């Protein structure tokens, strides 16, 4: 159970009998922007100015947050498990790259729009077919679909560059700002702006009636059918949006670095993004932020300390994941919730 709803419940329970106005207030409560929600954006701006040497890493973190956020919409909110979300990330990546390398459209925002449309369309079609299954079957099918796309990209090497990938040079953003391969300044803000837009979009959705319906589906699908919810249609809609956002993340990922390789479609990436989300916490919006940041920072720093010749960081991530899953209710964000609840209890007594 997500703490989101339990905090609402706690607020309501103390209110006792509810009149209609307070009932509305409680439903609207989560949607209100809290001061602490500014924190990630303040950090993001701070990092840019204080640690210019880490902008490449920080840009990758921003993009992974967006990718994890897209996954959270289906895994955390609608309860749709997927081990193949890289299929949409990778589709967005290749659409953005191929537009420049094969179709001569170098403007990056155009590439992003095309990437979102194509990956959302792919999400719609596959969602319509796959979401009739559940649990392990669905997990296997999403995985199989992503692996299939990966093989397809490998097979059509003339187009995709196969194993070597494609190097391409996107033009200036909106014809104005050039990408900055050396200091990553425009690259960083490019990623930050899209993360912010993507975040606002997801945030609006999860607190909307549609978002509540997704939580209803996650909590009790049979009940949702019985109240007349078109469950499959709702899930396909969420899956389509999620795929579009993943495609957006994928497009930015390759545009800021000017190359694409088969890695963007890999099973490893599908797994990694799920691990990031679980580390951070599912169904909580900010789990994606914390999970992606912790994962990428751990990866980067263990590599710096222990060297890149051995995959030690995998070991570190493994240990952190095991500890998190065993000892927290819902990743790092669950730890945060527990800490807040503990402090409140201390204050009261």
């Amino acid at each position: 159970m997500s703490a989101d709803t339990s905090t609402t419940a706690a607020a309501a329970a103390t209110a006792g009998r509810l009149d209609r106005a307070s009932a509305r207030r409680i439903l609207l409560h989560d949607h209100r922007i809290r001061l602490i929600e500014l924190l990630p954006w303040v950090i993001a701006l701070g990092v840019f100015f204080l640690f210019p040497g880490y902008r490449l890493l920080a840009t990758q973190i921003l993009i992974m947050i967006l990718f994890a956020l897209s996954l959270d919409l289906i895994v955390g909110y609608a309860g749709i498990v997927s081990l193949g979300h890289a299929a949409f990330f990778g589709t967005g990546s290749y659409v953005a790259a191929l537009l420049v390398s094969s179709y001569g459209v170098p403007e990056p925002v155009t590439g992003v729009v095309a990437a979102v449309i194509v990956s959302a369309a792919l999400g719609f079609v596959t969602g319509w077919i796959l979401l009739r299954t559940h649990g392990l079957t669905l997990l296997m099918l999403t995985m199989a679909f992503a692996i299939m796309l990966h093989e397809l990209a490998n097979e059509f090497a003339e187009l995709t560059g196969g194993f070597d990938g494609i190097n391409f040079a996107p033009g200036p953003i909106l014809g104005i700002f050039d990408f900055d391969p050396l200091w990553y300044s425009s690259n960083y803000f490019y990623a930050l702006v899209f993360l912010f837009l993507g975040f606002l979009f997801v945030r609006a959705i999860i607190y909307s009636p549609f978002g509540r319906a997704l939580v209803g589906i996650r909590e009790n699908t049979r009940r949702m059918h019985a109240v007349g919810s078109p469950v499959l249609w709702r899930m396909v809609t969420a899956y389509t949006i999620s795929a579009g956002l993943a495609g957006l993340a994928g497009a930015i990922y390759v545009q800021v670095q000017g190359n694409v390789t088969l890695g963007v479609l890999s099973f490893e990436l599908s797994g990694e993004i799920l691990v990031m989300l679980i580390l951070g916490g599912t169904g909580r919006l900010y789990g994606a932020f914390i999970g992606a940041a912790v994962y990428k920072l751990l990866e980067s720093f263990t590599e710096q300390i222990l060297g890149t010749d051995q995959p030690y960081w995998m070991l570190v991530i493994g240990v952190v994941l095991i500890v998190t899953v065993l000892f927290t209710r819902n990743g790092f964000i669950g730890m945060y919730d527990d800490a807040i609840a503990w402090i409140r209890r201390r204050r009261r007594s």
Partner: protein
Amino acid sequence: MSEAVLETRDLNKNFGALQVSRNINFRLDAGARHALIGPNGAGKTTFVNLLTGVLSPTDGAVLLNGRDITHMRQDRRVKAGIARTFQINTLFAGLTVLENLYLAVSEHLGRAGAMFRPAGARREVVDEAMAALDGLRLADDAGKTIRELPYGRQRLVEIAIALALKPKVLLLDEPAAGVPSAESHLILDVIEALPEDIAVLIIEHDMDVVFRFAREITVLVQGGILASGPPDEIAANAEVRSVYLGEGTHD
């Protein structure tokens, strides 16, 4: 004879070689207070699942107001006016009572697909949800999660959700099952006070409830209808007594 709201024609359902519903010809009249009884495993819940579209029949037809809905999707049937409660509580256990009702009402009013307006922004959805709770005197519990409620009150939420969908047909699958006898009168009171214009089909084991409530009784045995008629007729039916009521007295 009044007009049938819900009707089945030669309804059959097989699970492989197992026949769980056989040739069910059933009619639920407008404003009916109809009880469906039968021993365990008689196929009562299967029948409800066929009516609501959870299961599709092997053959036969289901008609709502004369319209064939045999192949209609579950959610469309709900919108067409068939609501149900479950034998075992099927609620959003971690959500508040208000949120449970909110989800039902927003689907019913066609507001649940909206993405760019916060939940709760539409006054009529919240008002209807609260009205449904008021109707069953559940408003005091609106802010509690389902888990925090005693089982009997959870059963009432099941009924409140069904009523919030403004049904023409209400299927109550053992509404008092699992409720301690001290609380069961609360549920019976609610059932007795249901609006007259709703046709009610109740599945129940408790004969006191059945004979107090029902004006029509259908007895289901091994997936088929054994007898159907007014309560005194069913009570006097020798076959019913031996198969069903007779067994009951030996418990």
